[in-house]
């Protein structure tokens, strides 16, 4: 029954250690912004940050997280990079159905934290794990570049 640090708050999770974080977030804590898409680390819809790094919560056992800080889409706007990315997304209307976009934004924010001025290769390497069934890739790429040059 681990205690998790989610968006700056502690939550005691009454579930077995091997339960993936995704379900703790969605079904227990009530943070439904993190999405379920595949459950096998193939789509990226469930991406959250663990100490600032993008991870797939659908396969991350809650027992292995310890004291690392979990950040979800609901709080990423409180970070400077996250806010920048969200704004870039809004400015050029990246979103279609939107279901993949929490994960896309989390992945893009982690990319910009690690690589503030990413080129196309960097974007490919960081974002290829995130599927968008609506096919918003052209705009995702553009929005990341816009976010990178915005102050």
């Amino acid at each position: 029954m681990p205690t998790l640090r989610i968006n700056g708050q502690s939550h005691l999770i009454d579930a077995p250690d091997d339960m993936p974080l995704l379900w703790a977030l969605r079904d227990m804590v009530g943070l439904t912004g993190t999405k379920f898409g595949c459950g096998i680390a193939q789509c990226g819809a469930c991406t959250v940050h663990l100490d600032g790094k993008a991870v797939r919560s659908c396969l991350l056992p809650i027992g292995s997280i310890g004291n690392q800080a979990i950040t979800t889409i609901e709080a990423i706007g409180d970070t400077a990079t996250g806010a920048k990315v969200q704004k870039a997304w809004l400015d050029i209307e990246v979103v279609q159905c939107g279901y993949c976009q929490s994960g896309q934004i989390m992945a893009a924010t982690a990319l910009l934290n690690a690589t503030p001025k990413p080129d196309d290769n960097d974007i490919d390497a960081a974002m290829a794990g995130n599927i968008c069934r609506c096919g918003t890739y052209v705009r995702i790429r553009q929005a990341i570049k816009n976010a990178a040059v915005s102050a």
Partner: protein
Amino acid sequence: MTMLAPIAPSLSRRGFLTAGAALGGGLLMGFRIDVAQAAVPSALPSALPPGVPPVPNGYSINPNAFVAIAPDGKVTFQIPQEEMGQGVYTSLSQLIADDLDVALDRVTPVPAPPVEALYGSPGSGRMGTGGSRSVRSFYTVLRVVGASARAMLVQAAADRWQVDPKTLRTDNGEVIDDANGGRRLSYGELAQAASALPVPTDVVLKADKDLKLIGKPVHRLDTPAKVNGTAQYGIDVRLPGLRIATLAASPVVGGKVAHVDDGEFKKLPGLQLVVLDDIVAVVGPHFWAAKTGLDALDITWDGGPDGKIDSPQLWQALRETSAKPGALGTNKGDTTKAEGDRLDVAYELPFLSHAPMEPQNFTVHVKDGGCEMWGGSQVQAAAWNAAAKVLGIKPEKVVFHNYMLGGGFGRRLDVDMVTKAVRIAQKVDGPVKVVWTREEDITQDVYRPAYRNVMSATLKDGKVTGWSHRIAAGSVAVRMSGKPLDGGLDRGALEGATENNYGVPNFHVEFIEAKPRAINVGYWRGVAPNNNVFASESLMDELALKAGQDPVAFRLAHLSSTPRLKAAVERVAKEANWGSPLPSRVGRGICAQFAFGTFIATIAEAEVDTSGHVRVRRMTSVIDAGRVVNPDGMLAQVQGGLIFGLTAALYGEITIKDGRVEQRNFNDYRMMRINEAPSIDVYMIENTEAPGGIGEPGVTAAAPSLVNAIAAATGVRLRRLPIDRDKLAERKTASL
């Protein structure tokens, strides 16, 4: 902005729709609609601007059903269409807001209740979002609604001020009396009085030059909630006491549960096992518990007669059927008398799964002789009725809270996710959210039919003189209605095949139903044109080659009777630098298409390396969709549609073994990813022709242009999808 928290109007026992009550507490000046009298005032303009589609005779528009204005001037828009990513919340709100004369940010769309008498489409009378039809169907209706409401508000002001309404004007939510010092009344102040006025029987739509929103790129209303995680999809439903279930339905269509061994399952605490005829579900406190429980069961299925069907058998059956004559779709001249060199070909397309990013789910609470349910559907009324039917109750006893869709693509035109959830919920005390795994979502889909096209064409002096096309496929119409086809013809399967864009003098199209065993077919983004445009534009390319002509020039020479398509082809050739030199093993291919009321010409540029690997370098489309409501939204739809179509062309195929779908998740049902996506340029041709659909044209244009590009790059003509990379690699050994 949290406008997308679900707010679902409910239908009370007496059949009154009370928007105000449903929106939570009388803040709104609610319009009350008596459903029984829905077909009341019809407000139709006597004259329509050019290109604004007429509304069918007898269709009545009741503005009160669509618009509610609160005292603070906020406009609630009961939107009949579903938001599934195509931007319809925004474009339909633009239509209302422009003629109502309010800024877009004052409008909040909320899902309309499932009352087809009020919200059915003017064409079919049904509620449903699909076929790239939302704007086409509701363009005039919603402008009339806005204009009628505006006229009523103006009348209310005129009554209040005792002036002639003709002397008043409106601006962004206010009625202004210029003749009297510019005094103003806000819509919020006028709404109550306006609601009591009769609906005008004649309204005037804004002239094109006065439009402030329609045709202008606007920010989407649903985006803010979708970038900060607050947008709520069906899968996000949370309720007090909610339990979560996941299920396994018979992996063979028509199969049954034979035996469930629950030895291991029983060791797990806090779970409920639900075993139905053809479904096993586990209910638990959260999804993980339910899934762990389901995995612990050892289920034996009785596959029944289809339990031995494999894909090769299905293809053989389709090929046999396609050799027989079909029902006539269209005919002109006499193809048997057409002169010239003849080309006989067949094109084949596989079954496809929808795989929307949001796996299927529905939340249902069966209680007190009724039921309340939450979820996203492309067919609100059908979902509502289906739930009632399962329970054997009147639809009025079902309260349906409709949600945004994490992708539809036609999957949510079916209601099996609703009926399965209701059946499970019948066994559960309290509300239960039934969430499908991705594996269940892919293996229990209703699949885009497999097609075989038997075609032949004749060519004389560089012109196509004869064209015959037999489409063989399972009929989605039959599968969904359960009724046989009238005269053997599925009219829905003809779009994109029968238009004869190229003005061929002898032209014949027929359809033959080839119902596949062991698989249910359904509508898939792009519907029939997925097949028909692929077949037609592949054949056109082959004919150009046979005639020794450039594929663009060849098409242009045949497009004199279809000038809008011709203009699109000319423009796209220019934008894509058609004819400019390319490196070896890189080719361009064109697709000229008229479908969904929209003209689109597309050029793909693709590279095929010596191992057969295809890299799509660039896609260029020129689209003429007539009157466009949100140009940026249209560009987005074409961009996304092209990716959707390319994904299918490159990777998409559902196969069957032992009656079971073999693909299960994104590891074996592959999606195009950002590092494979081409650069995409979309250009629009602006005009005031009737609006065309935009959700699907990009999808159906992708495969033919890509396959034609591959032919140009390699000389290999692929007549089957998905693209066979091994075949392209073989060519390398043969010719290089």
